[in-house]
Protein backbone atom coordinates (compact mmCIF):
# COMPACT_ATOMS: atom_id res chain seq x y z
CA UNK A 1 0.00 0.00 0.00
CA UNK A 2 2.74 2.35 1.04
CA UNK A 3 4.70 1.37 -2.04
CA UNK A 4 1.69 2.11 -4.27
CA UNK A 5 1.20 5.49 -2.68
CA UNK A 6 4.84 6.26 -3.24
CA UNK A 7 4.53 5.20 -6.86
CA UNK A 8 1.48 7.46 -7.33
CA UNK A 9 3.30 10.36 -5.69
CA UNK A 10 6.32 9.90 -7.95
CA UNK A 11 4.13 9.90 -11.04
CA UNK A 12 2.48 13.11 -9.88
CA UNK A 13 5.84 14.71 -9.32
CA UNK A 14 7.26 13.57 -12.62
CA UNK A 15 4.28 14.11 -14.95
CA UNK A 16 4.48 17.91 -15.33
CA UNK A 17 8.10 17.72 -16.42
CA UNK A 18 7.19 15.29 -19.18
CA UNK A 19 4.84 17.72 -20.94
CA UNK A 20 6.88 19.40 -23.60
CA UNK A 21 5.82 22.73 -25.10
CA UNK A 22 5.87 22.98 -28.87
CA UNK A 23 6.06 26.37 -30.58
CA UNK A 24 3.86 26.10 -33.65
CA UNK A 25 3.20 28.06 -36.83
CA UNK A 26 0.98 27.51 -39.84
CA UNK A 27 2.44 24.96 -42.35
CA UNK A 28 2.30 27.66 -45.05
CA UNK A 29 4.91 29.54 -43.04
CA UNK A 30 8.13 27.76 -44.08
CA UNK A 31 10.49 30.55 -42.99
CA UNK A 32 13.44 29.80 -40.72
CA UNK A 33 12.50 30.71 -37.13
CA UNK A 34 15.41 30.51 -34.71
CA UNK A 35 15.32 30.13 -30.93
CA UNK A 36 16.22 33.84 -30.67
CA UNK A 37 13.28 34.71 -32.94
CA UNK A 38 10.96 32.70 -30.66
CA UNK A 39 12.27 34.46 -27.52
CA UNK A 40 12.02 37.86 -29.19
CA UNK A 41 8.52 37.26 -30.58
CA UNK A 42 7.17 36.04 -27.22
CA UNK A 43 8.72 38.96 -25.36
CA UNK A 44 7.47 41.54 -27.86
CA UNK A 45 10.94 42.62 -29.01
CA UNK A 46 10.30 41.33 -32.52
CA UNK A 47 7.00 42.09 -34.22
CA UNK A 48 7.13 39.91 -37.30
CA UNK A 49 8.62 37.11 -39.37
CA UNK A 50 11.61 37.24 -41.73
CA UNK A 51 9.36 38.03 -44.72
CA UNK A 52 8.18 41.22 -43.03
CA UNK A 53 4.68 40.00 -42.12
CA UNK A 54 3.46 41.12 -38.70
CA UNK A 55 3.21 38.09 -36.39
CA UNK A 56 0.10 37.37 -34.32
CA UNK A 57 1.60 35.88 -31.16
CA UNK A 58 -0.71 33.56 -29.22
CA UNK A 59 -0.21 32.27 -25.71
CA UNK A 60 -2.16 30.04 -23.33
CA UNK A 61 -4.35 31.34 -20.48
CA UNK A 62 -2.76 32.51 -17.25
CA UNK A 63 -2.13 29.66 -14.84
CA UNK A 64 -1.73 27.04 -17.60
CA UNK A 65 1.25 24.89 -16.60
CA UNK A 66 2.50 24.65 -20.22
CA UNK A 67 2.68 28.43 -20.39
CA UNK A 68 4.61 28.52 -17.10
CA UNK A 69 7.01 25.89 -18.45
CA UNK A 70 7.52 27.92 -21.61
CA UNK A 71 8.23 31.07 -19.58
CA UNK A 72 10.74 29.17 -17.47
CA UNK A 73 12.45 27.06 -20.14
CA UNK A 74 12.40 29.39 -23.15
CA UNK A 75 12.39 32.85 -21.59
CA UNK A 76 14.10 32.05 -18.28
CA UNK A 77 11.42 33.85 -16.24
CA UNK A 78 8.77 32.91 -13.71
CA UNK A 79 5.11 33.79 -14.38
CA UNK A 80 5.32 36.66 -11.89
CA UNK A 81 8.48 38.00 -13.57
CA UNK A 82 6.80 37.81 -16.98
CA UNK A 83 3.77 39.65 -15.62
CA UNK A 84 6.04 42.36 -14.20
CA UNK A 85 7.89 42.53 -17.55
CA UNK A 86 4.66 42.89 -19.54
CA UNK A 87 3.26 45.47 -17.14
CA UNK A 88 6.36 47.57 -17.83
CA UNK A 89 6.09 47.08 -21.61
CA UNK A 90 2.35 47.62 -22.01
CA UNK A 91 2.10 50.65 -19.71
CA UNK A 92 4.97 52.41 -21.51
CA UNK A 93 3.57 51.91 -25.00
CA UNK A 94 6.29 49.48 -26.08
CA UNK A 95 4.06 46.56 -26.94
CA UNK A 96 1.18 44.33 -25.95
CA UNK A 97 1.42 40.83 -24.47
CA UNK A 98 0.50 37.80 -26.60
CA UNK A 99 -3.21 37.19 -26.98
CA UNK A 100 -4.39 34.41 -24.68
CA UNK A 101 -6.38 31.56 -26.23
CA UNK A 102 -7.31 28.08 -24.98
CA UNK A 103 -5.40 24.99 -26.14
CA UNK A 104 -8.33 23.96 -28.39
CA UNK A 105 -8.58 27.40 -30.01
CA UNK A 106 -4.80 27.46 -30.43
CA UNK A 107 -4.62 24.50 -32.77
CA UNK A 108 -7.52 25.83 -34.83
CA UNK A 109 -6.23 29.42 -35.07
CA UNK A 110 -2.68 28.46 -36.03
CA UNK A 111 -3.93 25.89 -38.57
CA UNK A 112 -6.08 28.61 -40.18
CA UNK A 113 -3.91 31.72 -40.07
CA UNK A 114 -0.44 31.83 -41.67
CA UNK A 115 0.55 34.91 -39.58
CA UNK A 116 0.19 33.23 -36.18
CA UNK A 117 2.72 31.64 -33.85
CA UNK A 118 1.57 29.83 -30.71
CA UNK A 119 2.21 27.30 -27.96
CA UNK A 120 0.85 23.77 -27.73
CA UNK A 121 1.41 20.60 -25.74
CA UNK A 122 3.85 18.69 -27.98
CA UNK A 123 1.71 15.56 -27.55
CA UNK A 124 -1.25 17.34 -29.18
CA UNK A 125 0.54 18.52 -32.32
CA UNK A 126 -1.10 17.43 -35.58
CA UNK A 127 -0.14 17.73 -39.24
CA UNK A 128 -2.25 20.90 -39.40
CA UNK A 129 0.60 22.89 -37.82
CA UNK A 130 4.38 23.08 -38.10
CA UNK A 131 6.63 22.84 -35.03
CA UNK A 132 9.48 25.38 -35.00
CA UNK A 133 10.84 24.73 -31.51
CA UNK A 134 10.36 22.61 -28.39
CA UNK A 135 11.01 23.62 -24.80
Amino acid at each position, binding site marked *: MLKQLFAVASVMLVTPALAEVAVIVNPANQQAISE*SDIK*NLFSGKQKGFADGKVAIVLSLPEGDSLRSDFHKNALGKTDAQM*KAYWSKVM*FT*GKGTPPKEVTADEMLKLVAENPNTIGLLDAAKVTAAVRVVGKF
Partner: protein
Amino acid sequence: MRYWLILALLCCCTVWADDRFQFSGYGSLVAGKVVGGELDPSGEKEFQVDFYDYAFYTEELDFEQESMVALQMRADVMERLSATIQLVAKGADGWSPDIDWAYLSYQVGQDGNLMVGRRMLPMYYFSEYMEVGYAYPWLRPPANLYWWEITQFNGLTYAHSLRAGDWTFTPSVFAGRETQRDIKSHDFWRNRGGYYFPPEGTYIAGTADVTWSKILGANLAVNNDWVDLRASYFRTHYNTTSEIFFTDELDLNNDGVVDQRIERRLKPDGSPYISGDWPLTDFDLDFYGLGGSLTFEHVIVLFDYNYVVYDDGYGSKFPTFYFSLVYNHETWQPYVGLSTAKLELSKDWQGFGVGDAEEHQIMTVGLRYNLGSSAAIKLEYNDFSDKGDRLPWYDFSYHNDARLLSVGVDFVF
Protein backbone atom coordinates in the same frame (compact mmCIF):
# COMPACT_ATOMS: atom_id res chain seq x y z
CA MET B 1 -17.56 61.27 -7.26
CA ARG B 2 -14.18 60.46 -8.71
CA TYR B 3 -14.38 56.90 -7.42
CA TRP B 4 -17.60 56.61 -9.44
CA LEU B 5 -15.86 57.81 -12.58
CA ILE B 6 -13.17 55.14 -12.17
CA LEU B 7 -15.84 52.52 -11.45
CA ALA B 8 -17.80 53.59 -14.52
CA LEU B 9 -14.68 53.22 -16.66
CA LEU B 10 -14.02 49.80 -15.17
CA CYS B 11 -17.56 48.77 -16.10
CA CYS B 12 -16.92 49.92 -19.65
CA CYS B 13 -14.09 47.40 -19.77
CA THR B 14 -16.62 44.60 -19.71
CA VAL B 15 -19.14 46.31 -21.99
CA TRP B 16 -16.60 47.18 -24.69
CA ALA B 17 -14.62 43.97 -24.41
CA ASP B 18 -14.32 43.89 -28.15
CA ASP B 19 -11.19 42.88 -30.02
CA ARG B 20 -10.41 46.44 -31.05
CA PHE B 21 -10.34 47.74 -27.46
CA GLN B 22 -8.07 46.59 -24.69
CA PHE B 23 -8.49 47.66 -21.10
CA SER B 24 -5.90 47.15 -18.44
CA GLY B 25 -4.63 48.94 -15.41
CA TYR B 26 -2.51 49.01 -12.32
CA GLY B 27 -2.53 50.43 -8.87
CA SER B 28 -1.02 50.55 -5.42
CA LEU B 29 -2.37 50.75 -1.90
CA VAL B 30 0.37 52.03 0.35
CA ALA B 31 0.48 52.93 4.02
CA GLY B 32 3.45 54.60 5.65
CA LYS B 33 4.61 56.15 8.87
CA VAL B 34 7.74 57.98 9.91
CA VAL B 35 9.33 56.00 12.72
CA GLY B 36 12.25 58.26 13.57
CA GLY B 37 14.32 61.25 12.55
CA GLU B 38 14.75 64.93 13.23
CA LEU B 39 12.16 67.65 13.40
CA ASP B 40 12.08 69.92 10.37
CA PRO B 41 11.35 73.67 10.47
CA SER B 42 7.59 73.00 10.52
CA GLY B 43 8.02 71.03 13.74
CA GLU B 44 7.28 67.64 12.15
CA LYS B 45 9.35 64.62 11.24
CA GLU B 46 8.71 64.24 7.52
CA PHE B 47 9.77 61.85 4.80
CA GLN B 48 9.14 63.06 1.27
CA VAL B 49 8.27 60.34 -1.24
CA ASP B 50 6.97 62.16 -4.30
CA PHE B 51 8.07 65.63 -5.18
CA TYR B 52 5.85 65.93 -8.24
CA ASP B 53 2.63 65.27 -6.36
CA TYR B 54 4.11 66.54 -3.15
CA ALA B 55 3.49 63.37 -1.16
CA PHE B 56 5.15 62.95 2.22
CA TYR B 57 4.70 60.96 5.40
CA THR B 58 4.70 62.16 9.00
CA GLU B 59 4.53 60.26 12.26
CA GLU B 60 0.81 59.72 11.64
CA LEU B 61 -0.03 56.55 9.73
CA ASP B 62 -1.21 57.64 6.28
CA PHE B 63 -2.89 55.62 3.51
CA GLU B 64 -3.38 58.35 0.90
CA GLN B 65 0.08 59.67 0.05
CA GLU B 66 1.05 56.98 -2.47
CA SER B 67 -2.14 55.01 -3.04
CA MET B 68 -3.23 55.26 -6.65
CA VAL B 69 -5.07 53.52 -9.44
CA ALA B 70 -4.61 53.80 -13.21
CA LEU B 71 -6.69 52.61 -16.10
CA GLN B 72 -5.33 52.19 -19.60
CA MET B 73 -7.49 52.00 -22.69
CA ARG B 74 -6.00 51.07 -26.01
CA ALA B 75 -7.90 51.05 -29.28
CA ASP B 76 -6.71 49.71 -32.61
CA VAL B 77 -7.74 52.54 -34.92
CA MET B 78 -6.61 50.81 -38.09
CA GLU B 79 -3.82 48.49 -39.12
CA ARG B 80 -0.54 49.77 -37.58
CA LEU B 81 -2.25 52.68 -35.80
CA SER B 82 -3.42 52.54 -32.19
CA ALA B 83 -4.58 55.11 -29.64
CA THR B 84 -3.80 54.80 -25.93
CA ILE B 85 -4.96 56.79 -22.95
CA GLN B 86 -4.05 56.31 -19.30
CA LEU B 87 -6.08 57.87 -16.50
CA VAL B 88 -4.32 58.05 -13.17
CA ALA B 89 -5.98 58.94 -9.86
CA LYS B 90 -3.77 59.46 -6.82
CA GLY B 91 -4.56 59.85 -3.14
CA ALA B 92 -1.96 62.62 -2.85
CA ASP B 93 -3.84 64.53 -5.54
CA GLY B 94 -7.27 64.14 -3.89
CA TRP B 95 -8.07 61.18 -6.18
CA SER B 96 -8.65 63.60 -9.05
CA PRO B 97 -8.01 61.64 -12.30
CA ASP B 98 -5.21 63.00 -14.50
CA ILE B 99 -4.34 62.02 -18.04
CA ASP B 100 -0.76 60.83 -17.71
CA TRP B 101 -0.52 59.23 -21.12
CA ALA B 102 -2.53 59.97 -24.29
CA TYR B 103 -0.84 59.12 -27.57
CA LEU B 104 -1.19 57.68 -31.02
CA SER B 105 1.25 54.97 -31.94
CA TYR B 106 2.10 54.11 -35.54
CA GLN B 107 4.16 51.06 -36.41
CA VAL B 108 6.68 51.96 -39.11
CA GLY B 109 7.76 48.81 -40.96
CA GLN B 110 8.44 45.92 -38.60
CA ASP B 111 10.79 47.62 -36.19
CA GLY B 112 9.90 51.30 -36.04
CA ASN B 113 7.38 52.98 -33.76
CA LEU B 114 6.29 56.60 -33.95
CA MET B 115 4.39 57.94 -30.93
CA VAL B 116 2.65 61.31 -30.96
CA GLY B 117 1.06 62.80 -27.86
CA ARG B 118 1.49 62.80 -24.12
CA ARG B 119 3.93 60.34 -22.55
CA MET B 120 6.22 59.96 -19.55
CA LEU B 121 9.58 61.63 -20.14
CA PRO B 122 12.31 58.95 -20.44
CA MET B 123 14.75 60.29 -17.83
CA TYR B 124 15.80 57.77 -15.21
CA TYR B 125 15.83 54.03 -15.88
CA PHE B 126 12.47 53.63 -14.13
CA SER B 127 10.92 57.00 -15.11
CA GLU B 128 8.58 55.69 -17.77
CA TYR B 129 6.95 53.20 -15.40
CA MET B 130 7.76 54.63 -12.00
CA GLU B 131 4.09 54.51 -11.08
CA VAL B 132 3.64 50.86 -12.09
CA GLY B 133 4.73 49.44 -8.73
CA TYR B 134 4.12 45.87 -9.82
CA ALA B 135 6.84 46.20 -12.49
CA TYR B 136 9.75 46.75 -10.07
CA PRO B 137 10.86 45.16 -6.82
CA TRP B 138 10.77 48.14 -4.45
CA LEU B 139 7.82 49.91 -2.93
CA ARG B 140 8.91 53.06 -4.81
CA PRO B 141 11.90 54.21 -6.86
CA PRO B 142 14.42 56.13 -4.71
CA ALA B 143 12.62 59.34 -3.73
CA ASN B 144 15.76 61.48 -3.76
CA LEU B 145 16.36 60.76 -7.46
CA TYR B 146 12.82 60.73 -8.83
CA TRP B 147 12.00 64.22 -7.64
CA TRP B 148 11.19 66.27 -10.73
CA GLU B 149 8.12 68.43 -11.04
CA ILE B 150 7.92 67.53 -14.72
CA THR B 151 7.49 63.83 -15.46
CA GLN B 152 5.48 63.87 -18.70
CA PHE B 153 5.75 65.76 -21.95
CA ASN B 154 3.72 66.43 -25.07
CA GLY B 155 5.52 65.71 -28.29
CA LEU B 156 6.96 63.10 -30.61
CA THR B 157 8.98 59.94 -29.99
CA TYR B 158 10.46 57.66 -32.62
CA ALA B 159 12.03 54.34 -31.64
CA HIS B 160 13.63 51.78 -33.92
CA SER B 161 14.73 48.26 -32.94
CA LEU B 162 17.68 46.39 -34.41
CA ARG B 163 18.37 42.77 -33.48
CA ALA B 164 21.47 40.59 -33.53
CA GLY B 165 20.86 37.11 -32.12
CA ASP B 166 19.53 37.49 -28.58
CA TRP B 167 20.51 41.16 -28.44
CA THR B 168 18.11 44.00 -29.21
CA PHE B 169 19.28 47.59 -29.71
CA THR B 170 16.63 50.30 -29.59
CA PRO B 171 17.74 53.86 -30.31
CA SER B 172 15.02 56.48 -29.92
CA VAL B 173 14.67 60.24 -30.27
CA PHE B 174 12.07 62.52 -28.69
CA ALA B 175 11.07 66.18 -28.73
CA GLY B 176 8.36 68.23 -27.09
CA ARG B 177 7.39 70.50 -24.21
CA GLU B 178 5.45 70.52 -20.98
CA THR B 179 3.98 73.01 -18.51
CA GLN B 180 2.85 72.17 -15.00
CA ARG B 181 0.74 74.74 -13.18
CA ASP B 182 0.13 75.35 -9.48
CA ILE B 183 2.99 73.19 -8.34
CA LYS B 184 2.40 72.25 -4.73
CA SER B 185 5.98 71.67 -3.74
CA HIS B 186 6.96 75.13 -4.98
CA ASP B 187 4.21 76.63 -2.86
CA PHE B 188 5.55 74.67 0.03
CA TRP B 189 9.11 75.87 -0.46
CA ARG B 190 7.96 79.40 -0.99
CA ASN B 191 6.11 79.37 2.30
CA ARG B 192 9.26 78.39 4.11
CA GLY B 193 11.28 81.10 2.41
CA GLY B 194 13.68 80.59 -0.41
CA TYR B 195 14.01 79.25 -3.93
CA TYR B 196 12.90 82.29 -5.87
CA PHE B 197 15.07 84.74 -3.97
CA PRO B 198 13.04 87.61 -5.30
CA PRO B 199 14.47 91.12 -5.40
CA GLU B 200 14.03 93.18 -2.29
CA GLY B 201 10.47 94.32 -1.68
CA THR B 202 9.03 91.56 -3.86
CA TYR B 203 7.20 88.55 -2.52
CA ILE B 204 5.59 85.60 -4.19
CA ALA B 205 1.84 85.87 -4.11
CA GLY B 206 0.40 83.25 -6.42
CA THR B 207 1.19 79.66 -7.29
CA ALA B 208 4.24 78.57 -9.23
CA ASP B 209 4.26 77.19 -12.77
CA VAL B 210 7.11 75.36 -14.47
CA THR B 211 7.66 74.98 -18.22
CA TRP B 212 10.15 72.72 -19.94
CA SER B 213 10.29 73.88 -23.53
CA LYS B 214 12.37 72.72 -26.50
CA ILE B 215 12.82 69.25 -24.98
CA LEU B 216 15.10 67.35 -27.35
CA GLY B 217 16.71 64.04 -26.47
CA ALA B 218 17.83 60.54 -27.38
CA ASN B 219 17.88 57.16 -25.65
CA LEU B 220 19.65 53.91 -26.45
CA ALA B 221 18.29 50.71 -24.92
CA VAL B 222 20.33 47.50 -25.23
CA ASN B 223 19.09 44.19 -23.91
CA ASN B 224 19.13 40.41 -24.08
CA ASP B 225 17.90 37.64 -21.74
CA TRP B 226 19.71 38.92 -18.69
CA VAL B 227 21.12 42.37 -19.50
CA ASP B 228 19.01 45.50 -19.89
CA LEU B 229 20.84 48.83 -20.24
CA ARG B 230 19.60 52.29 -21.11
CA ALA B 231 21.57 55.44 -21.86
CA SER B 232 19.64 58.68 -21.98
CA TYR B 233 20.27 62.31 -22.79
CA PHE B 234 18.05 65.33 -23.25
CA ARG B 235 18.19 69.09 -23.15
CA THR B 236 15.37 71.44 -22.28
CA HIS B 237 14.80 75.08 -21.45
CA TYR B 238 13.58 75.38 -17.87
CA ASN B 239 11.42 78.29 -16.80
CA THR B 240 9.52 78.76 -13.57
CA THR B 241 7.28 81.70 -12.88
CA SER B 242 5.05 82.87 -10.10
CA GLU B 243 2.74 85.76 -9.41
CA ILE B 244 4.46 88.25 -7.15
CA PHE B 245 3.61 91.40 -5.28
CA PHE B 246 5.46 94.49 -4.15
CA THR B 247 5.07 96.26 -0.85
CA ASP B 248 5.44 100.03 -1.06
CA GLU B 249 6.51 101.52 2.26
CA LEU B 250 5.36 105.09 2.58
CA ASP B 251 6.85 107.62 4.99
CA LEU B 252 4.13 110.25 4.77
CA ASN B 253 5.63 112.85 7.14
CA ASN B 254 9.31 112.20 6.40
CA ASP B 255 10.14 111.24 10.00
CA GLY B 256 12.00 108.13 8.98
CA VAL B 257 9.19 105.87 10.23
CA VAL B 258 7.02 103.92 7.79
CA ASP B 259 3.45 105.11 8.16
CA GLN B 260 1.73 102.96 5.58
CA ARG B 261 2.42 99.78 3.62
CA ILE B 262 0.62 99.24 0.31
CA GLU B 263 0.66 95.94 -1.51
CA ARG B 264 0.74 96.10 -5.29
CA ARG B 265 -0.36 92.79 -6.83
CA LEU B 266 -1.63 94.03 -10.17
CA LYS B 267 -0.16 96.20 -12.87
CA PRO B 268 -2.13 99.32 -13.89
CA ASP B 269 -3.70 97.27 -16.70
CA GLY B 270 -5.06 94.77 -14.15
CA SER B 271 -2.72 91.86 -15.00
CA PRO B 272 -0.60 90.24 -12.26
CA TYR B 273 3.11 90.82 -11.83
CA ILE B 274 5.01 87.70 -12.84
CA SER B 275 8.49 86.76 -11.64
CA GLY B 276 10.73 84.37 -13.36
CA ASP B 277 12.94 85.71 -16.11
CA TRP B 278 16.24 85.80 -14.33
CA PRO B 279 19.16 83.39 -14.18
CA LEU B 280 17.80 81.40 -11.23
CA THR B 281 14.45 80.61 -12.81
CA ASP B 282 15.11 80.63 -16.57
CA PHE B 283 17.94 78.47 -17.93
CA ASP B 284 18.93 75.43 -20.02
CA LEU B 285 18.99 71.98 -18.41
CA ASP B 286 21.01 68.97 -19.62
CA PHE B 287 20.26 65.45 -18.38
CA TYR B 288 22.64 62.49 -18.77
CA GLY B 289 21.83 59.01 -17.52
CA LEU B 290 23.00 55.41 -17.67
CA GLY B 291 21.01 52.72 -15.91
CA GLY B 292 20.07 49.12 -16.13
CA SER B 293 19.43 45.74 -14.64
CA LEU B 294 21.49 42.56 -14.71
CA THR B 295 19.64 39.34 -13.91
CA PHE B 296 21.80 36.53 -12.54
CA GLU B 297 20.53 33.19 -11.31
CA HIS B 298 20.08 34.28 -7.72
CA VAL B 299 20.50 38.05 -7.78
CA ILE B 300 19.23 40.99 -9.82
CA VAL B 301 21.47 44.07 -9.85
CA LEU B 302 19.78 47.42 -10.58
CA PHE B 303 21.68 50.66 -11.01
CA ASP B 304 21.29 54.18 -12.37
CA TYR B 305 23.81 56.97 -12.65
CA ASN B 306 22.64 60.45 -13.60
CA TYR B 307 24.12 63.87 -14.03
CA VAL B 308 22.01 66.99 -14.42
CA VAL B 309 23.50 70.36 -15.29
CA TYR B 310 21.67 73.68 -15.01
CA ASP B 311 23.05 76.62 -16.93
CA ASP B 312 21.65 78.82 -14.15
CA GLY B 313 23.09 81.56 -11.95
CA TYR B 314 24.60 78.99 -9.58
CA GLY B 315 25.93 76.66 -12.29
CA SER B 316 24.04 73.89 -10.46
CA LYS B 317 25.15 70.29 -10.98
CA PHE B 318 23.29 67.27 -9.65
CA PRO B 319 25.21 63.98 -9.65
CA THR B 320 22.94 61.17 -8.45
CA PHE B 321 23.10 57.39 -8.38
CA TYR B 322 21.44 54.32 -6.97
CA PHE B 323 22.44 50.73 -6.63
CA SER B 324 20.17 47.90 -5.55
CA LEU B 325 20.44 44.13 -5.11
CA VAL B 326 17.39 41.90 -5.24
CA TYR B 327 17.37 38.22 -4.34
CA ASN B 328 15.84 36.54 -7.37
CA HIS B 329 13.32 34.14 -5.92
CA GLU B 330 10.00 33.28 -7.55
CA THR B 331 7.85 34.28 -4.58
CA TRP B 332 9.98 36.09 -2.01
CA GLN B 333 12.26 38.89 -3.14
CA PRO B 334 14.22 40.55 -0.35
CA TYR B 335 16.14 43.62 -1.51
CA VAL B 336 18.54 46.31 -0.38
CA GLY B 337 19.29 49.66 -2.01
CA LEU B 338 21.36 52.78 -1.68
CA SER B 339 20.74 56.07 -3.45
CA THR B 340 22.59 59.35 -3.15
CA ALA B 341 21.93 62.78 -4.59
CA LYS B 342 24.10 65.86 -4.48
CA LEU B 343 23.88 69.47 -5.53
CA GLU B 344 27.10 71.29 -6.36
CA LEU B 345 27.22 75.01 -7.09
CA SER B 346 29.90 75.86 -9.62
CA LYS B 347 29.30 79.62 -10.07
CA ASP B 348 29.30 82.27 -7.39
CA TRP B 349 25.89 83.94 -7.65
CA GLN B 350 25.93 87.35 -5.99
CA GLY B 351 28.34 86.19 -3.31
CA PHE B 352 26.34 83.07 -2.50
CA GLY B 353 29.46 80.95 -2.81
CA VAL B 354 30.40 77.75 -4.62
CA GLY B 355 30.80 74.13 -3.52
CA ASP B 356 28.58 71.33 -2.27
CA ALA B 357 25.19 72.67 -1.31
CA GLU B 358 23.22 69.52 -0.61
CA GLU B 359 23.88 65.84 -0.21
CA HIS B 360 21.50 63.18 0.91
CA GLN B 361 21.31 59.44 0.93
CA ILE B 362 18.57 56.85 1.29
CA MET B 363 19.33 53.33 2.48
CA THR B 364 16.54 50.87 1.77
CA VAL B 365 15.75 47.37 2.98
CA GLY B 366 12.60 45.61 1.86
CA LEU B 367 10.75 42.49 0.92
CA ARG B 368 8.45 41.77 -1.99
CA TYR B 369 6.09 38.81 -1.82
CA ASN B 370 4.33 37.81 -5.05
CA LEU B 371 0.70 36.94 -4.48
CA GLY B 372 -0.05 34.86 -7.56
CA SER B 373 0.91 36.65 -10.76
CA SER B 374 -1.10 39.87 -10.53
CA ALA B 375 -0.35 41.32 -7.13
CA ALA B 376 2.60 41.75 -4.81
CA ILE B 377 2.87 42.77 -1.16
CA LYS B 378 5.84 44.92 -0.21
CA LEU B 379 7.28 45.92 3.12
CA GLU B 380 10.01 48.57 3.06
CA TYR B 381 12.18 50.49 5.48
CA ASN B 382 14.00 53.65 4.36
CA ASP B 383 16.63 55.62 6.19
CA PHE B 384 17.07 59.14 4.75
CA SER B 385 20.18 60.92 5.93
CA ASP B 386 21.10 64.50 5.27
CA LYS B 387 24.82 64.58 4.61
CA GLY B 388 25.10 68.15 3.37
CA ASP B 389 26.33 71.25 5.12
CA ARG B 390 23.40 73.44 5.94
CA LEU B 391 25.23 76.57 4.84
CA PRO B 392 25.18 78.33 2.51
CA TRP B 393 22.09 76.51 1.27
CA TYR B 394 18.66 76.89 2.79
CA ASP B 395 17.38 74.15 5.02
CA PHE B 396 14.55 72.66 3.01
CA SER B 397 12.39 70.42 5.13
CA TYR B 398 12.75 67.30 3.06
CA HIS B 399 16.43 67.29 3.81
CA ASN B 400 15.99 66.23 7.38
CA ASP B 401 17.03 62.82 8.62
CA ALA B 402 13.98 60.59 8.66
CA ARG B 403 13.20 56.90 8.85
CA LEU B 404 10.13 55.53 7.15
CA LEU B 405 8.29 52.23 7.39
CA SER B 406 5.81 51.47 4.62
CA VAL B 407 3.73 48.55 3.48
CA GLY B 408 1.86 48.26 0.20
CA VAL B 409 0.08 46.09 -2.31
CA ASP B 410 0.78 46.61 -6.02
CA PHE B 411 -1.53 45.07 -8.57
CA VAL B 412 -2.14 44.90 -12.31
CA PHE B 413 -5.33 43.95 -14.09
